[in-house]
């Protein structure tokens, strides 16, 4: 995939920043405004999907290698499970909102409030964004018909 014309490339290189920022906003303000981890994660993934449609696969692979993407996926899932277990450790029950109840009550309608809910939103956003981009990536690999492995740089012939 060589990418599209210069017009598409220019416009998408400007727009991708805005889409990424909007995704970050939805994830971080998920406990205050509509949205949350899942929707924001999909927006984050779609900014990279736009980049990949406009510039081609090789360009995106320099920016966000496949190995890094799978690591981000695992980090998101691990962080969400750890938040749940920390609730068990600090407040006595799984998924207890220990930050809000004990350490950092915060003030409603402020960015730093609601204890573990923003942290869970960030973990879910990371997980969903990385895994949806992985879905898109693996489908376009399958479409090309050329094989790649996930531990070596994509497109490189093995053996």
């Amino acid at each position: 995939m060589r990418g599209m014309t210069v017009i598409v490339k220019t416009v998408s290189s400007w727009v991708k920043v805005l889409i990424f920022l909007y995704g970050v906003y939805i994830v971080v303000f998920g406990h205050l405004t509509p949205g949350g981890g899942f929707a924001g994660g999909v927006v984050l993934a779609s900014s990279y999907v736009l980049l990949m449609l406009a510039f081609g696969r090789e360009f995106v692979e320099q920016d966000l290698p496949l190995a890094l993407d799978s690591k981000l996926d695992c980090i998101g899932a691990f962080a969400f499970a750890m938040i749940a277990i920390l609730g068990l450790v600090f407040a006595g029950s799984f998924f207890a909102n220990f930050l809000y109840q004990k350490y950092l009550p915060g003030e409603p309608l402020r960015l730093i409030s609601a204890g573990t809910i923003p942290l869970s939103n960030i973990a879910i956003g990371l997980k969903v964004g990385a895994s949806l981009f992985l879905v898109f990536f693996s489908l376009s690999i399958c479409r090309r018909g050329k094989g790649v492995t996930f531990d070596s740089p994509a497109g490189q012939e093995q053996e």
Partner: protein
Amino acid sequence: MAVFYILLLFVIIAAIIAVETKNLLSAVICVGAIGFGGSLMFLFLRAPDIAITQIVVEVMGLIILIRATISRDLTFISGDREFFGTVVSVVIVFVIFLAGIHVFDTLPDFGTAVFTQVPDTASQTYIEEGLERTGAANLVAAVILDFRAYDTLGEATVLFTAIIGAMVILRGKSRKLLEDPD
């Protein structure tokens, strides 16, 4: 209220076109139109959380489906329907329709939530004490990440497992293609 009927008509027409058209790309675009109609309905029902999720997932799904269908060899559907299959599906749809009439009779009116009529429901507690007990101004976030966080954990696990399965299957296919090009 009229806007819901207009959107419903739009969605039904799009669904019929998606089933009946021979071109795969038009079918995929019509499926996208169904999703956008649904997200507009959620917006008019004052559910912005679900509207955002619906529209975002719809765009991603549309792009993935278009990438998967375009530039395949098979972009047109050909062949006639079998007589037996048509009869069976019409009978099943009719049975579901008859059952649906009874179900819709027992539902509360459109736009009136059940928890406003039944006292002491769980959702009443969430609405009254949600802000005070979790500190989250967005009640949806309070429910999915605090009161009902187990659901979210299960959903995340399902997504994680699905990605692992898809990557394992596609990787095996890629290796086989690598050993035997073309």
